[in-house]
């Protein structure tokens, strides 16, 4: 079975053909030729342990592309992977043929090179606040993987790459397009066959919504999952109208604001709103955004609805008047995703049918499904904090944290827990989607729900490296275990850090505490500083006693107090310089 053949009746000028079992959309255009091939596999199909594998294959498939004057590229999205090119017809044919040939027989000897390229591409790229929201909504799976880097690159094997390619980059999972009126000569789109794949699974780890996260400094955002369709699209546009008026037109509250709409599966879409606050006004941005969405639950201004409709209709008009060939990539995405094709006439009618009541009802859905991210708590608006603790806590061998005795690590038969007076974070072994290991014995476990536990053996009383290694490693599947290279010894935490403020919340992915500011701290400099502290301290405190007894004829009997003060100051200094940063 191939991707279902689309009904193109509403798109005059576009026809469908088939090459080597791959459907091909065709529409002629003047000038050069464009073409591409799209696969129904993307980053959201991966697991955390294989994350990056699709991107890696995309790179490998393009490894040998040397085309003169042709513009070509590949993109790995959450739901699909696209290869496209523009140039002469023979360029397009050669490109598509080469991509398919590479996918049939991937240059696996280049895997390590391409992994390095992907790692350096990712350097400096942050998953940002959007990533944290994805993890808190979806966990460490599916669309939540966008909140992590391509963590799987450190463990993906050649066999896995070949297996993924053979089962996902297949003819049943592919669709091509070429801006031509007929299939060009010499096209060879032979691909493996392994059946059609479903869309990414939509996971959800938020037990209750609306919920909020805190810690975004300069603005506010929310995203919400709602039934997809024209009502959600129109409601998003109405919301944007309201926000432009409330936060920009009538007030100087927002610097920039963005309303996004992303289809998640056959039924659901994500609407996301980001407001970058004007200087010093993030608090007003939070209140303004909450009031704007809150108000839409009850009132839709006719002008806003009219503006939203007009904007949507303009886009439809642009589609209707565009040369058919320009629509091919968008139609290909729709077809490969299994979504019905809605022609301009039908789309226009559906947009015009959306009423103010529909928008109000949709605003209620948006409100009740929302995950907020702002500077502070939002319980005042009836929004609950997103969970920062697991439901379960393991029972087993318990090790107290040296610097915070009320925090304990529990190594249980079924998992690992970090227990604090406020709650516990647990990762079950059978639910662990990634185990990161370093040779010094530290381990990081990530659960499918996005909770993470960092085990630093040096931080716990009586916890030996072998306790950790022997307890954890055999219980976690090797297929999710990654062995990382040895750390810089300076990155291994010392035993006297300041009390941690960590809650073990999701999304604290600063692996191995690498975000400590100010670079490595020299031990020698600390020794010198401590010595200087004592010299100055003895002079000042000792001198002070002498001075007082001279001037006031009063003998101050401080005894050991100055010495204790110096000891205390020295410990503080060492902690400040060598303490573990917040993880």
């Amino acid at each position, binding site marked *: 079975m191939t991707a279902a053949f689309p009904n193109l009746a509403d798109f005059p000028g576009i026809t469908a053909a088939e090459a080597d079992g791959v459907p091909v959309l065709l529409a002629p255009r003047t000038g050069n030729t464009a073409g591409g091939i799209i696969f129904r596999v993307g980053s959201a199909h991966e697991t955390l342990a294989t994350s990056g594998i699709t991107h890696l294959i995309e790179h490998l498939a393009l490894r040998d592309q040397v085309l003169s004057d042709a513009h070509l590229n590949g993109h790995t999205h959450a739901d699909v992977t696209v290869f496209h090119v523009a140039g002469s017809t023979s360029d397009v044919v050669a490109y598509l043929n080469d991509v398919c040939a590479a996918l049939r027989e991937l240059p696996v000897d280049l895997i390590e090179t391409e992994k390095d390229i992907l790692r350096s591409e990712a350097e400096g790229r942050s998953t940002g606040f959007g990533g944290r929201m994805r993890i808190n909504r979806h966990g460490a799976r599916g669309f939540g993987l966008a909140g992590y880097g391509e963590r799987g690159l450190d463990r993906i094997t050649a066999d896995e790459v070949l297996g993924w390619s053979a089962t996902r980059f297949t003819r049943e999972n592919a669709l091509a397009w070429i801006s031509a009126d007929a299939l060009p000569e010499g096209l060879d789109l032979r691909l493996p066959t392994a059946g059609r794949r479903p869309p990414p699974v939509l996971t959800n780890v938020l037990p209750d919504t609306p919920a909020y996260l805190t810690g975004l400094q300069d603005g506010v955002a929310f995203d919400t999952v709602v039934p997809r369709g024209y009502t959600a699209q129109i409601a998003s546009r109405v919301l944007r109208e309201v926000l432009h008026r409330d936060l920009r037109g009538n007030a100087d509250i927002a610097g920039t604001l963005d309303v996004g709409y992303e289809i998640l599966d056959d039924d659901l879409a994500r609407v996301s709103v980001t407001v970058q606050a004007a200087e010093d006004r*993030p608090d*007003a941005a939070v209140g303004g955004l909450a009031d704007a969405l809150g108000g839409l639950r009850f009132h839709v201004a006719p002008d806003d609805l009219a503006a939203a409709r007009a904007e949507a209709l303009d886009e439809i008009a642009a589609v209707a008047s565009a040369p058919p060939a320009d629509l091919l990539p968008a139609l290909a995405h729709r077809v490969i995703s299994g979504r019905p094709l809605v022609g301009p006439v039908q789309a226009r009618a559906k947009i015009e049918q959306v009423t103010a009541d529909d928008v109000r009802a949709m605003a209620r859905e948006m409100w009740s499904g929302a995950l907020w991210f702002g500077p502070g708590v939002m319980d005042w608006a009836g929004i609950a904090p997103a969970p920062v603790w697991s439901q379960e806590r393991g029972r087993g061998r318990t090790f107290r944290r040296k610097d915070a005795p009320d925090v304990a690590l529990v190594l249980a038969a079924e998992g690992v827990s970090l227990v604090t007076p406020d709650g516990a974070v647990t990762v079950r072994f059978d639910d662990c989607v990634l185990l990161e290991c370093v040779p010094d014995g530290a381990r990081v476990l990530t659960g499918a729900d996005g909770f993470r536990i960092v085990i630093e053996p040096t931080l716990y009383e009586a916890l030996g490296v072998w306790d950790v290694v022997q307890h954890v490693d055999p219980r976690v599947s090797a297929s999710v275990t990654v062995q990382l290279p040895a750390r810089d010894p300076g990155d291994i935490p010392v035993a006297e850090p300041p009390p941690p403020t960590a809650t073990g919340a999701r999304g604290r992915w600063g692996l191995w505490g690498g975000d400590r500011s100010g670079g490595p701290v020299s031990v020698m400099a600390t020794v010198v500083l401590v010595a200087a502290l004592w010299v100055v301290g003895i002079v000042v405190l000792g001198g002070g006693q002498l001075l007082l007894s001279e001037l006031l004829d009063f003998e101050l009997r401080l005894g050991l107090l100055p010495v204790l003060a110096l000891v205390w100051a020295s410990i503080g200094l060492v902690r400040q310089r060598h303490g573990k940063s917040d993880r």
Partner: protein
Amino acid sequence: MPTARDAASTAEFFDPLAHVPNGAALRGARDAGDIRAVLAATGALTTHDDVVATLWAVAGHATVDPRFTAAIDAADDGTPLARTLRAVRYVTVGWAIRSRFRAEHVSAGQFEQFHDWLRRAERVLFDVCSEHPGYVPAWEARITTARGLELGSGEARRRFDRLAALDPQVFAAQRAYLQQILPKWSGSWEEASRFVEECTAGAAPGSLGPLLAVDLAVERWLDGERIVPPAMLDRVRQAAMSSVWHPEHPRTVATATAHANLALLFTVAQQYADAAPHFEALGDAPVEGMWGYHPGEPAVNFRTHRDLAAKAAAKAAGRRGPGARA
């Protein structure tokens, strides 16, 4: 102002409802716990300052009595007025727990309860403002919940602006927002002065905006500026002429509050003759205004200084001869 006071003598002595149309009926209904009658009478009021002051006066009654809270809850018929009264009740109950100490003197437990009540209030007000965005009294209360919940002065200002876009002359709202930007909350004297200027400049003829300067002067006095600068007194005299003494001044309960505060400022500045006409304007119906700031029992203070002012005025009148007026 959620300066809930439970001392019976004070509550009886100061009575803002005396300055509200049909105030006696309102007071009777409140004292009888007949909240439906309270709502009916409040709903008949025509100025926002009267409605707002009535809500705070009713909600601030018997703040330690949960039965009164229950009565207000039970009378919620879904109208914005009834819902706002509920919310304001929660604010006054919470604020009574917090008491009138500054933040550093409030215990953690008090703060927790205070915030709890304010959150309850804010949730009600959030829905009221969503459903009835033109309902001024709810926005007025939200200026105070924003302050108590420490949502930030940017948010408090946004709420004030939403309200001012509906009615720019609500004196209670101006006073509520001024509190937010005082140094004791999260602002500064400069910011507060700028806002006072803004309200003065934007005041409609005869409206109370210019008298926000009195609030500011009293706050500075409370903060330790024991000598009110003569320039400030001149400014306030002028502000009184352009507001409460202006021929077009629309009288509301806020007028009475303004007189009480003017009387207080001239009293602490020891300008008793200036204070006298403001005491007089209140007649037999004193309102508390900021008299709670004066050390000691507010009612006693008020009475004592009213007498001093009357004597000083009589003396001044004697000097000037009959018929003269300050």
